[in-house]
């Protein structure tokens, strides 16, 4: 019996491999498995090497997994490109119309032919899912329920489609039966009463922002952040809400700045190239103290880079997106579940300290589909900005009085001032005097203190070496940490999605350690270098392949680093 199943469907874009993986995930999640998907594809619309992967498990899932139990390869390139990731006892299903494989652990059949034979050529996904179910000895009923639910759409031909798909499923199952040795039977799902949702990272982040009462969203399409814009176009449609498509990222950032100034909770989404174009506008929001949120979904960089691949290489820019003295608050969620809370916190942070906040996501996290406990917005403080109170008609205090946060005047109400990108006095008028620059600079940095909290995780706090991942590397890092602990390594763990300001007690903890090991998906070791600016002795473990970490490789690298440190050769 097995608690885990990792399946990859690989082929060309347009063949439905991603749909197959999501169908498998949906079906499995509905019967109570935990699931997580992962996909990669090139930057083009149809064609190009594409893969969709699903991991099922009887316990919560931390990463896409360390290898493959089943590889479904629709063409030879897909086989060649993915075969090395098979576990030793992994199995291959291949499309015999495209190529042949003479291997004991491989079975081929003509996927499309089988699909067509059901009378519904579109059921090829289901043939593939059936083959996987067959190999893992999963009962057909898990999937028939899913099929029935999915295609019950109140149309005339529902029943025909359902039947064809059920047939496709059984054809797939039959095709693999008895032909090669099957996988160990999959444990039945742990039935759970918990209210769970199956959700993608970007959806969770958007819903978090909506839960924090987002009002205005204006964005410009860019992979892998376009999904946030189109989600908002479809869902942020109530009265007094506004969603718009800008003509460029310069318009996105400056228009949500206008909306933030006018009193609304405002947000945009982008990826690296767009973040570059927002540089000047984010600086203006910092300077003029206008709340807004930029969701930056990281992809391979620099420049146009690798638009559909994952990376964690925009951190340095996110912390310091523009010229002059500034340090943007950054929240980088590490899991799909955290995406929801990060979305809500980002809005709350912007409102709380009255300035720009960067929600730093990643391609693989935004596109990952996972079952998570139904998020509960009532769990978090949704902050609203402190506004000038007009009740007794008194003259309000000047907009930028003193060196700490002051109430925000809302246009249309008393308290008129100028939100000024030039250095300014208390009313926002331009000034050339050093004294104002000193006071206002302190003010802008002081306000960051309002965002400090002590929400972080830690374990084995007394170890001299801690593993401290950030963002989407949390999952694989956690798996590696668990393995290292199991292996008897003396390591601890600390993590927070609050990158800046970082929880003060977490900083204290990190400062007290001999070594902080930071697994991160970039070349420069960006988070480690950020920690070092705080005098924390951090060493990165980097990977920059466009793909997430794998537990076992990561665990080995950490071990190596630790032994270097112990040997004093670091």
């Amino acid at each position, binding site marked *: 019996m097995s608690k885990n199943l990792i399946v990859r469907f690989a082929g060309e874009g347009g063949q439905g491999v991603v749909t197959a993986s999501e169908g498998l995930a949906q079906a499995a999640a509905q019967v109570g498995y935990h699931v997580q998907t992962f996909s990669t594809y090139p930057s083009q619309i149809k064609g190009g090497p594409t893969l969709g992967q699903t991991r099922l498990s009887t316990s919560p899932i931390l990463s896409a997994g360390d290898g493959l139990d089943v590889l479904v390869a629709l063409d030879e390139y897909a086989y060649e490109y993915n075969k090395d990731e098979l576990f030793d006892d992994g199995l291959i299903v291949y499309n015999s119309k495209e190529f042949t494989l003479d291997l004991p652990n491989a079975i081929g059949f003509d996927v499309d032919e089988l699909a067509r034979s059901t009378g519904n050529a579109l059921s090829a996904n289901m043939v593939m899912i059936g083959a996987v179910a067959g190999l893992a000895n999963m009962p057909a009923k898990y999937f028939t329920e899913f099929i029935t639910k999915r295609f019950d759409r109140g149309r005339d031909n529902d029943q025909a489609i359902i039947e064809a798909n059920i047939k496709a499923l059984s054809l797939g199952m039959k095709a693999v039966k008895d032909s090669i040795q099957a996988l160990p039977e999959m444990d039945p799902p742990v039935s759970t009463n918990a209210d769970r949702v199956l959700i993608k990272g970007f959806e969770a982040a958007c819903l978090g922002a909506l839960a924090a009462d987002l009002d205005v969203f204006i964005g410009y399409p860019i992979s892998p952040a376009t999904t946030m814009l189109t989600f908002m176009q479809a869902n942020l449609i109530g009265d007094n809400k506004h969603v718009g498509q800008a003509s460029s990222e310069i318009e996105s950032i400056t228009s949500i700045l*206008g909306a933030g100034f006018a009193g609304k909770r405002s947000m945009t989404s982008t990826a690296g190239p767009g973040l570059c174009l927002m540089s000047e506008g984010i600086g203006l929001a910092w300077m003029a103290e206008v709340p807004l949120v930029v969701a930056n979904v990281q992809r391979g960089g620099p420049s146009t880079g690798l638009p559909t691949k994952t990376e964690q290489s925009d951190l340095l820019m996110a912390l310091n997106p523009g010229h002059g003295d500034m340090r943007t608050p950054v929240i980088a969620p590490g899991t799909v579940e955290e995406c929801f809370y990060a979305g809500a916190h980002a809005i709350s942070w912007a409102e709380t300290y009255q300035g720009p906040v960067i929600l730093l996501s990643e391609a693989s996290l935004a596109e990952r589909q996972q079952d998570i406990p139904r998020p509960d917005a009532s769990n978090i403080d949704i902050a609203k900005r402190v506004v000038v109170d007009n009740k007794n008609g008194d003259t309000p205090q000047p907009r930028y009085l003193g060196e700490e946060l002051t109430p925000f005047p809302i*246009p249309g109400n008393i308290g008129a001032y100028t939100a000024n990108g030039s250095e300014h006095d208390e009313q*926002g008028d331009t000034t050339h005097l050093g004294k104002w620059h000193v006071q206002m600079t302190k003010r802008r940095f002081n306000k960051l203190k309002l965002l400090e909290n002590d929400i972080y995780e830690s374990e084995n706090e007394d170890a001299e070496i801690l593993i401290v991942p950030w963002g989407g590397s949390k999952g694989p890092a956690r798996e590696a940490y668990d393995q290292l602990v199991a292996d008897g390594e003396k390591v601890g763990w600390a993590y927070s999605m609050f990158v800046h300001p970082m929880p003060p007690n977490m900083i204290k903890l990190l400062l007290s350690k001999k070594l902080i090991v930071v697994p991160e998906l970039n070349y420069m070791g960006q988070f480690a270098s950020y920690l070092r600016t705080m005098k924390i002795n951090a060493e990165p473990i980097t990977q920059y392949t466009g793909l997430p970490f794998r537990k076992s490789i990561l665990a080995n690298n950490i071990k190596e680093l630790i032994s270097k440190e112990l040997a004093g050769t670091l």
Partner: protein
Amino acid sequence: MTKRNPDYDFKWCPGCGDFGVLRALDKALEERCEALSEPIENTVFVAGIGCSGNIVHLQDGPQPYGIHGIHGRTLPIAYGVKAANPELNVVVAAGDGDFLSIGGEHIGPAARRNLDIVCVIMDNGIYGLTKGQASPTTQLNVITSTTPLGKLDEPENPLELYLTNGVGFIASMVSTKPKDITKAILAGIEYPGLAIIHIQSPCTTYNDTYSLLKGDVKNGIEPLAIDLPESHDSTDYDKALTIARSNKIPVGILYSKKGSQSMNQKIATQKQSTNAPQRTVDELLTTLSLK
């Protein structure tokens, strides 16, 4: 934003055209507030960067809200303000460099959205604040610090560009006639869509065009700026385009498209007609529930 602030001591050069624009604008806002008994705080003044943009700090009397942001971005900032609160009266103020060069990209999108705002453009054919470089409206062969041998790039015709970008209300003005400007601004505010008041506002220090505009009839020099005839039909697009493309600068309300619907009106109509329901976060989560 008050010129009485002792620490704010910005001054325009003596004779700068922007003084006339300021007077006109102050007057327009005053009249509007009186006429509608609307608080001045209902107005948001979005200014560009340049000598011209400093107008936001120099207004007399009760002060509106202001945004003095970054170079060239008045229009998208104004879009955001209107998107957030359609009730606000948004006035953009910018120079030719700010609005037409670095900010030129935003005119088309603003016109196509049809933002309900008024833009007061102070065109002196030069970059004043950075001390005299060529702008898109600097004329051919003019010598500036970036065109030491005379400008080679063709000058831009802003009126024509506004028209073909679909701007619905266009007035062409000279800074020496503040009363006309006041009227044009008020008409622009009334207009349900994008209104641009494009003003010749000479820079006495780097590009003094007063005499060019006024001409010198005694010495046989025709004025460059010519009042539109009483008979001008400002709803006639073709006429407006022909005038814009003449080699004179018209003074008056060049174009006022009929039947304009502003962005906010279009959105409201669409929302009503489609009736798509706003689902709560809870409802949206339920669509994703595995229960």
